[in-house]
C-alpha cells in the first residue's frame, strides 16, 4: 500500500503523482515508440486504429463521462471531420491546416447540436442527437458535388508541408503524437476550473448554477470540444482507410463509440483507451476463436453483434464502472493483499438526494 506524504499543493496538481506513475507510463510510452520495430505491419495498423478510436473516445468521454450529456449521434462528428479533411486534403491543403479546419468545423457543428442540450436531458437528448446523426449521414450521401455521394471519396496521403507520409509507420507516429496531445489536453482540462465545471454540471446542475457556472456556456463548450476531438479522429480515420463513404458514419458507428466508453468505464480517461482496445481487439478475438467453435456457431451470421451485445449487457449488470473499474478493484486487491474485503467498492445507495428541482 502506497501512502503519499503531501507537503505542497503542487503535489495535488501534477499529473504523475508518484514514482510508479512515472515508471509505468514511461514504459508504456517506450513500448508505443518502439512498436514499429516490435510488431508486424498488421498489428501496427490495428494499434493505429486503437489510437484513432481513443481520440474519438476521449471526446465522447468528455461529453458523456464528465459532463453527463449522452450523444447517440457521435459518428456524425466523425463524418464531418473526415469529409472536411478529405475534401481539403484533396485540394492540396497541408495536413495540419486541413486537420485544424476539420476540428473547427466539427466543433462548430457541435455547438449547433449542443443547443438542444440546453433544453432537453437524458433520453430526450439521446433522441435529438440520434436524429442529428441521421441528418448528417443523409447530407453526406446527397451532397454529391462535394462528398461524392454514396460512391464515397478517396483521400491522398497526409502531406506535412511537402513531406508526404507514405508508410504505415509514419502514419502511426502521427496518430501517436496527436493522441498524446489530446490526452494531455483532456487531463489539463480536468485539473482546472473548466473541467471541474463539467463535472459539476454532471452531478448537480442546480448547484452548479448557484456556484456561478454558466450552464449554457459549459454545455455548449463540452459539446464543441467533444465534436472537435471526434473531427480529428475522423480525419485520421479517413487517412487510415484512404477511402470514406457515408455508411461508415451511420448509427452503428455511433453505438460503437458509446459502447466503447461504457465498456471502458464511464467517467475515467483510462476508460476511453481500454474501450478502444476492446472495440478493436474484439473482432480479432472472435475471428481467431471462430475456427475452434462448432461450425453451426462459428459460421453463424451475426456472431460478432451477438457477442458485443452479451458483453455489453454483462458489463452493465456486473461491472457498471467498466474495464477501468475492474482494474481499480484488481489493483486495490493487490495493494491491500490480504486485507481486501468483498464489499469495498459497493456504493452506498443514496436516498437523500432530491429530485425536486431537476
Amino acid at each position, binding site marked *: 500500500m502506497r501512502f503519499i506524504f503531501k507537503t505542497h499543493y503542487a503535489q*495535488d496538481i501534477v499529473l504523475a503523482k508518484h514514482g510508479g506513475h512515472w515508471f509505468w507510463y514511461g514504459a508504456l510510452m517506450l513500448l508505443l515508440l518502439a512498436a514499429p520495430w516490435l510488431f508486424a505491419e498488421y498489428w501496427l495498423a490495428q494499434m493505429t486504429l486503437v489510437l484513432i478510436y481513443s481520440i474519438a473516445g476521449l471526446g465522447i468521454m468528455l461529453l458523456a463521462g464528465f459532463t453527463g450529456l449522452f450523444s447517440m449521434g457521435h459518428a456524425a462528428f466523425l463524418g464531418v471531420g473526415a469529409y472536411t479533411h478529405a475534401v481539403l486534403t484533396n485540394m492540396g491543403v497541408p495536413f495540419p491546416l486541413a486537420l485544424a479546419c476539420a476540428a473547427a468545423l466539427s466543433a462548430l457543428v457541435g455547438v449547433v447540436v449542443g443547443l438542444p442540450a440546453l433544453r432537453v436531458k437524458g433520453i430526450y437528448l439521446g433522441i435529438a442527437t440520434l436524429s442529428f446523426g441521421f441528418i448528417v449521414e443523409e447530407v453526406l450521401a446527397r451532397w454529391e458535388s462535394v462528398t461524392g455521394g454514396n460512391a464515397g471519396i478517396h483521400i491522398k496521403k497526409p502531406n506535412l508541408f511537402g513531406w508526404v507520409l507514405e508508410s504505415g509507420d509514419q502514419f502511426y507516429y502521427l496518430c501517436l503524437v496527436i493522441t498524446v496531445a489530446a490526452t494531455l489536453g483532456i487531463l*489539463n482540462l480536468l485539473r482546472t*476550473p473548466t473541467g*471541474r465545471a463539467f463535472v459539476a454540471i*454532471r452531478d*448537480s446542475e442546480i*448547484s452548479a448554477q*448557484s456556484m456561478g457556472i454558466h450552464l449554457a456556456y459549459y454545455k455548449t*463548450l463540452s459539446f464543441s470540444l467533444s465534436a472537435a476531438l471526434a473531427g480529428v479522429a475522423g480525419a485520421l480515420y479517413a487517412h487510415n482507410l484512404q477511402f470514406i463513404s457515408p455508411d461508415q458514419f451511420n448509427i452503428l458507428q455511433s453505438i460503437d463509440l458509446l459502447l466503447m466508453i461504457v465498456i471502458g468505464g464511464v467517467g475515467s480517461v483510462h476508460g476511453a483507451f481500454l474501450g478502444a482496445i476492446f472495440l478493436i481487439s474484439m473482432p480479432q478475438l472472435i475471428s481467431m476463436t471462430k475456427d475452434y467453435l462448432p461450425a453451426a456457431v462459428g459460421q453463424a451470421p451475426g456472431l460478432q453483434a451477438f457477442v458485443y451485445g452479451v458483453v455489453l449487457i454483462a458489463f452493465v449488470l456486473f461491472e457498471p464502472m467498466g474495464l477501468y473499474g475492474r482494474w481499480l478493484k484488481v489493483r486495490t486487491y493487490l495493494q491491500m493483499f490480504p486485507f481486501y474485503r468483498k464489499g469495498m467498492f459497493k456504493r452506498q445507495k443514496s436516498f437523500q438526494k432530491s429530485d425536486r428541482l431537476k
Partner: protein
Amino acid sequence: MNPPLLSAQHLSVRFGGVLAVNDVSFDVQQGEVFTLIGPNGAGKTTVFNLISRIYTPTSGEIDYLGPQGMLKLTEQPPQNVASLGIARTFQNIELFEHASVLHNLLIGRHTHRSTGLWQDLFFTREAREAELASREKAEEVIDFLGLQHHRDSFVAGLPYGVRKVVELARALCTQPKLLLLDEPSSGLNVEETDDMAFWIQDIKNDLGITVLMVEHDMGLVSKVSDRVLAMNQGEVLAMGSPKEVQNDPRVVEAYLGTVDDVASLRRNTPDTAEAR
C-alpha cells in the same frame, strides 16, 4: 443607518393556482443573522429560490447591494448571483457526489477563476498559479470547518452530517457577502447542531458574512439569530427579535392552532353530546 444588504419588496410568486409567496417584504442588514421560520409549506424555501434566481417572482423586486452598488437582483441571470457574492446551501444537500470533498470546494471557487479555456487546456503558468492559489483558499475553509479528515474522500461515501458541513464549506469557498442557509440543522444530531450554531456565529463575527437562513430548530434560531421573520401560507406573520416572534400570538396560532380549532375536533365529550 447603512443601506440594507438585501431588500425584498412585495415579493409574490404564483405557481398555477397556488400563491406560494404573497406580498413578502423584508430587509437584511449587513452583518446580521436573519432567519425565516414558519410551518411546512410556508414559502420559506421559495423565498430562497427567488433570491438565488432559480425562480422569477410574479411581482415584486429584490434589491441587493452588489460590488458596484445597489442593483436589481431580479434582473440578473441565475449564474451571476454567485459572483455578486451570494452563496447558498440546499435543504436536501446538492453536492457533486462523484467528486472528492476538495474537488467540491474547488468548484466553489469557480467565480474567482482567472484563466480561460486555452490557458486551462495548455496548463500555462497562470493556470498553475491560479490552481495553487485556489487550493490555498480551499484549505483555509477546510481548516475553519475542521474537514481535514475528509479532504480526499468521495462525497458519495460520506455520512449525512459531514455532507451538510461540506456543503457549508463549498458555499464559504465562494467568499460570499451573503450566505443563504436552507435548514442548516436538518438531519443533524444535537452535537452537530451545536457545532453548526458555533460556525454560524463565527461566520458572522469572524468572517463578517451576513447570513440569511431558513430553520426549524428554535433552539438554534434563538441562539444565533438577530432577527426572525415568521411566515405562514406565503405571508409574513411577524418580524422582530427571536423572543418577540416566538411570543407573537399569530405565530403561536400558525404552529399550534387556537383553542377554537381544537374544540371542533373534540369528539363525544359530555357537553358536546348535550349540545346535540
